[in-house]
């Protein structure tokens, strides 16, 4: 069994792991940003002492990751409060803010927030005043690309805390073909007791699926899919599935959401509604192979397959002429 398959099995059924390639499991988990999630899933199971100690380290570290992620959210909230605009947390920070199952062991890099598009200039100004600065980047090319075509301000980094914030106004680049309804995302957002806001559960899953397929080359896909598994298990109910389907259609993301459900079911055995998941497609197998292209040394394998997905991800984000120009500029840098 390859390390990636071992990782997937350990996450979905930790009790089934007896003796195995522990070094491979740990390296694959680290490479996929899933070590802490795995450590929580395997808490209390019989594992070799060295591995048990590594898992303990990972669980401890996860608490500090959570503290730091929520602190970034709080400092952003303080900076933007005077503007009175919605500030919606996304991805891992949102899971931590709401104490969801998907937060358990969830690593967090940058803080991702969504604000109304019209408020972007004021938001940027408020963040700059509160100590964030533009990341010193190379030529102006990427900066204008970010502003005009991507779905966020250029990344900002806090000058003393050294943490990044990505400010979005929608969940996909403007150049991508699906056009999510940003206003609907904000309208359906929820405010938590701590004053922070997150997307509705259905929208969180739609966003995770969008992030998994339409905004990436599937790097880090096993973790995104694990998020989707955790979210679906927590929120699934008879009433939820039609709501999820309705939101997916609203945001023109029904295809990615269905595929996400099928892949979560294939890999993590997530219970899914057959009608929303749709029929299995031939391409599902390619996606699965791409997600599992990680070996026990933590290396990504299957280069041709990965390259296909890399080009595809840019294709989805940019019209062909722009793509050619973008790749040419990057290659000649």
């Amino acid at each position, binding site marked *: 069994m390859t390390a990636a398959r071992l990782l997937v099995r350990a996450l979905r059924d930790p009790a089934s792991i007896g003796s195995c390639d522990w070094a491979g499991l740990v390296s694959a988990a680290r490479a996929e940003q899933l070590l802490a999630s795995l450590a929580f899933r395997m808490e209390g199971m019989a594992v070799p002492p060295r591995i048990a100690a590594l898992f303990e380290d990972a669980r401890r570290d996860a608490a*500090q990751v959570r*503290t*730091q992620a929520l*602190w970034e959210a*709080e*400092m952003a909230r*303080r900076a933007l*409060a005077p503007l009175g605009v919605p500030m919606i947390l996304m991805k891992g920070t949102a899971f931590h803010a709401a104490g969801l199952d998907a937060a358990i062991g969830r690593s967090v890099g940058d803080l991702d927030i969504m604000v109304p598009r019209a408020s972007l200039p004021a938001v940027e100004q408020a963040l700059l005043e*509160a*100590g964030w600065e533009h990341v010193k980047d190379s030529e102006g090319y990427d900066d204008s690309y970010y502003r005009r075509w991507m779905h966020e301000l250029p990344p900002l980094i806090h000058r*003393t*805390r050294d943490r990044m914030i990505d400010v979005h106004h929608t969940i996909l680049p403007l150049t991508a073909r699906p056009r999510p309804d940003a206003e609907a995302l904000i309208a359906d957002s929820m405010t938590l007791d701590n004053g922070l806001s997150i997307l509705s559960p259905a929208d969180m899953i739609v966003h995770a699926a969008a992030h998994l397929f339409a905004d990436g080359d599937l790097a880090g896909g096993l973790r995104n899919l694990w998020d989707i598994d955790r979210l679906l298990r927590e929120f699934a109910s008879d009433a939820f599935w039609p709501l999820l389907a309705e939101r997916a259609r609203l945001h023109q993301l029904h295809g990615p959401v269905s595929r996400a459900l099928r892949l979560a079911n294939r890999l993590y055995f997530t219970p899914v509604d057959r009608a929303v998941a749709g029929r299995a497609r031939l391409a599902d197998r390619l996606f699965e192979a791409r997600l599992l292209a990680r070996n026990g040394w933590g290396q990504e394998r299957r280069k041709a397959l990965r390259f296909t997905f890399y080009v595809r991800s840019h294709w989805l984000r940019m019209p062909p002429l722009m793509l050619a120009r973008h790749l040419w500029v990057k290659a000649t840098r």
Partner: protein
Amino acid sequence: MAGPAYIADPESAVRAVAVDGLTLLFHAPSGMTHIVAAPAPEILGALREGAADAAELIRRLRARFDLDDSDPGSASGAGAEAAILARLDELEAAGLVRRA
């Protein structure tokens, strides 16, 4: 109240260790460590009595401590007050103090 009101986190949220004239602070909500000098710890202590604007804060500090108003560089002699306001801004930027 004149200006904005400020609040500090409760004592339980902060672990303070004094070492030769400075205070090492571990701030649990952020997981961050700060190294602060007087009057920062005194400001935090005074704000724990309850929200206060800058003027009220200075009143509380005067009640607790002798403030040295002499400042060779300042014509008005309001050296201590200026220092307190500057430290308050820094504490807010560091996240140890926030607007009420």
